[in-house]
């Protein structure tokens, strides 16, 4: 059957279940029910601190077929997922579902566990590196379920994603399970992605390399959610933990795109006092922030908040008084961590508060402008950030679909061609974010506005910016690159792309 975006999706997918089809960004809004959470009550004589990972596995009773979860705040420096899954494998346990909010190259030991049947299902918001490549070759028994950051929180809180045991890597934990990410040798800042897991999983284990006397201070995740605490030598490599940010691009084409994006923002009238803003951690995204910073300073503008994964660059803007506060779901670098530690105006937001469409209002609903990227865009403005030019999984929504849905102005910044491939196509390989949420595409050769946004078109017409249709942009690209051949795909579904509301917006089929 085809969903409203024209994607061919079966009514039932083996290893996933019955499909609720995507019908629009806000079509499933309404009254929602949160799941009932089972809690093992703890009495005054109970001890929470355990001695080994093996003891943890026994105590929480991990058996075949269970779902275990992890957060990705330790990014490419995380040791916890590999340690836990390795210990589970050693006990001969099979058919585990790993719900890891993002998977990085250093999680490559998962590949062996997948091949050996220890891990047969994965639920994640983003995948890169060897695990993503191998899954794209079809080694995982069941299709990966890919969520958005907000959608994962929704799935956990609604019960759609039931977690048996949540393993929370804790830069600091006390003996009763209070956790924070601020202190310790593996400090990573805000623990936004761990909150729903802690609140809704049947069992929660804090794994820490910084066990402090009770009580830890401050408390980000409370003892009332945590069953057990395990101290290990190290939960992660600090060099890999705070590895999220890049530098502002030096590439003149990227700088030109950033300047044009900034001109678009200003022309829409949204750059004014009390504005809110979010941008990514990549080179061009930061260059847009640099342009905005210049403009805000020149015109004495003070914004209400900047949000997202927070980088040192945004922290600098905050310290200069350009924003009154920061909403932080994860710290991308050490500067962001230090800022989070130092002021209450740099606030954590949980993944649910960030982008869950089924609560009483996520932060994305208050966002004025978001700057995002794309691997592919089609002439209906649908955006792909999940698969690359070879059809293999190399990313995932993260907060892409959440912010695009909530923001008043969603701008995609991208080069029109990457290497010898055009970014704009008739149809993207995978739809991550639907075109109805994408307002403006800014490339170095021209700017395309979603035809539904007549208000933006009117405003941009009054500028000297090179506004053209998306078809015209596509033609310019194809004149230089030629029309790319279609990627050949098999029938095997290797990933189900869930939109933030739990409906299926697309699937990924194994590339041939």
């Amino acid at each position: 059957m085809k969903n409203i975006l024209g994607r061919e999706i079966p009514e039932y997918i083996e290893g996933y279940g019955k499909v609720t089809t995507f019908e629009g960004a806000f079509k499933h809004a309404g009254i929602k029910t949160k799941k009932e959470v089972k809690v093992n009550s703890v009495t005054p004589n109970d001890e929470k601190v355990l001695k080994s990972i093996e003891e943890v596995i026994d105590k929480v009773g991990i058996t075949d077929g269970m779902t275990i979860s992890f957060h990705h705040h330790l990014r490419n420096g995380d040791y916890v997922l590999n340690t836990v899954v390795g210990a589970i494998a050693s006990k001969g346990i099979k058919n585990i579902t790993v719900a890891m909010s993002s998977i990085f190259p250093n999680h490559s030991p998962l590949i062996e566990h997948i091949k050996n049947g220890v891990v047969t299902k994965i639920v994640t918001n983003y995948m890169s590196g060897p695990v993503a490549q191998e899954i794209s070759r079809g080694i995982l028994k069941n299709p990966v379920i890919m969520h958005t950051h907000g959608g994962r929180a929704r799935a956990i809180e609604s019960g759609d994603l039931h977690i048996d045991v949540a393993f929370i890597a804790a830069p600091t934990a006390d003996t009763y399970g209070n956790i924070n990410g601020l202190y310790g040798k593996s400090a990573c800042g805000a623990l936004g992605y761990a909150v729903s897991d802690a609140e809704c999983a049947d069992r929660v284990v804090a794994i820490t390399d910084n066990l402090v006397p009770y009580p830890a201070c401050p408390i980000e995740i409370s003892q009332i959610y945590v069953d057990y605490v395990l101290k290990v030598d190290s939960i992660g490599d600090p060099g890999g933990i705070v590895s999220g940010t890049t530098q502002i691009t030096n590439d003149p084409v990227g700088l030109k795109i950033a300047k044009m994006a900034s001109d678009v923002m200003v022309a829409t009238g949204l750059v004014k006092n009390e504005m809110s803003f979010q941008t990514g951690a990549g080179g061009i995204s930061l260059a847009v922030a640099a342009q905005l910073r210049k403009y805000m300073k020149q015109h004495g503008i003070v914004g209400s908040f900047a949000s997202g994964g927070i980088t040192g660059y945004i922290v600098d803007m905050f310290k200069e008084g350009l924003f009154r506060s920061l909403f932080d779901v994860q710290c991308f670098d050490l500067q962001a961590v230090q800022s989070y530690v130092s002021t209450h105006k740099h606030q954590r937001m949980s993944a649910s508060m960030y982008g869950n469409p089924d609560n009483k209002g996520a932060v994305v609903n208050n966002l004025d402008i978001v700057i995002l990227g794309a691997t592919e865009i089609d002439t209906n403005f649908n955006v792909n950030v999940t698969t690359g030019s070879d059809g293999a999984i190399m990313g995932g929504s993260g907060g892409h679909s959440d912010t695009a849905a909530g923001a008043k102005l969603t701008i995609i910044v991208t080069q029109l061609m990457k290497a010898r491939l055009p970014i704009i196509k008739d149809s993207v390989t995978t739809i991550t974010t639907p075109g109805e949420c994408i307002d403006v595409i800014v490339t170095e050769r021209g700017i395309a506005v979603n035809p539904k946004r007549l208000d933006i078109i009117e405003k941009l017409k009054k500028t000297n910016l090179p506004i053209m249709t998306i078809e015209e942009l596509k033609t310019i690209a194809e004149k230089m690159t030629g029309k790319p051949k279609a990627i050949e795909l098999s029938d095997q579904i290797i990933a189900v792309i869930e939109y933030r509301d739990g409906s299926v917006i697309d699937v990924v089929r194994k590339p041939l």
Partner: protein
Amino acid sequence: MKRLRRTMLFMPGNNPGMLQSAGILGADSIILDLEDAVSLTEKDSARILVREAIKNLDYSNVELVVRVNPITTEFALVDIDVIARVKPDALMIPKATEEELKTIDEMLIKIEKEEGFDAGSIKLIPIVETAYGLQNVYNIIKSCNRIVAILLGGEDLTSDLGIKRTKEGEEIFYARNQVSIACKAMKVDSIDTPFTDTNDFEGLEKDTRKAKSLGFTGKAAISPKHIDTIHSVFAPTFDEIKHAKRVLMAMEEAEKEGKGVFSLDGKMVDAPIINRAKNTVELARLLSLT
């Protein structure tokens, strides 16, 4: 319509990525370089790459210039023969002498005829970068009516003179004067030598203002990051445009009253001031600043 030539951006001719993006970096002219940017072993492949880039990419929004190798080298004549046939807007000629320019002119007449191009359509921009060139700049411009501009090459010139090249540029003060005056006398554009510190924007602005104050009409650049700063120096300010418009309005009023000379804000306005005002308003119009 007069074409703006405030910036001329050098791009290495052997870099496909840069050739692809050269046209959209905001410069008025781009110079695809077959000379200093390209090593000896790459001269032939760079020539082919530039030829194919000109044939296949869209450079319609910039002035397209190719810097060929000096006539004294084994590469120059092949450069000219190959590149002229794909019709760039101009060829830039390093260390050009009057005789060399005449030779190139004859080559181009022949190529234009063979290829069916309008006679004289391929222009020339000699680089003055030797003591000889500086001393003979007026004659160099006179030698060929294809010449539309002169580029002052500060690095090579100071090397030829055996003197140190500095950021402050005192050592090229005379050269700047000489080139600017000769160009003005012959009604061609004068393009200042590029500023070589890619990250010193304050220094770039100072250097550009110096050139502008001596009458230069534009400046070469070796980094796309320099373009905005150079353009802002060569653009009239809001106050300059406002004043120029007032001068022209006062002139119209004076003409209606039959006055040849008039005053504005207590100062006499005569022909040079009126001309300057007209130029300012015209430039503002071209830059869409009015």
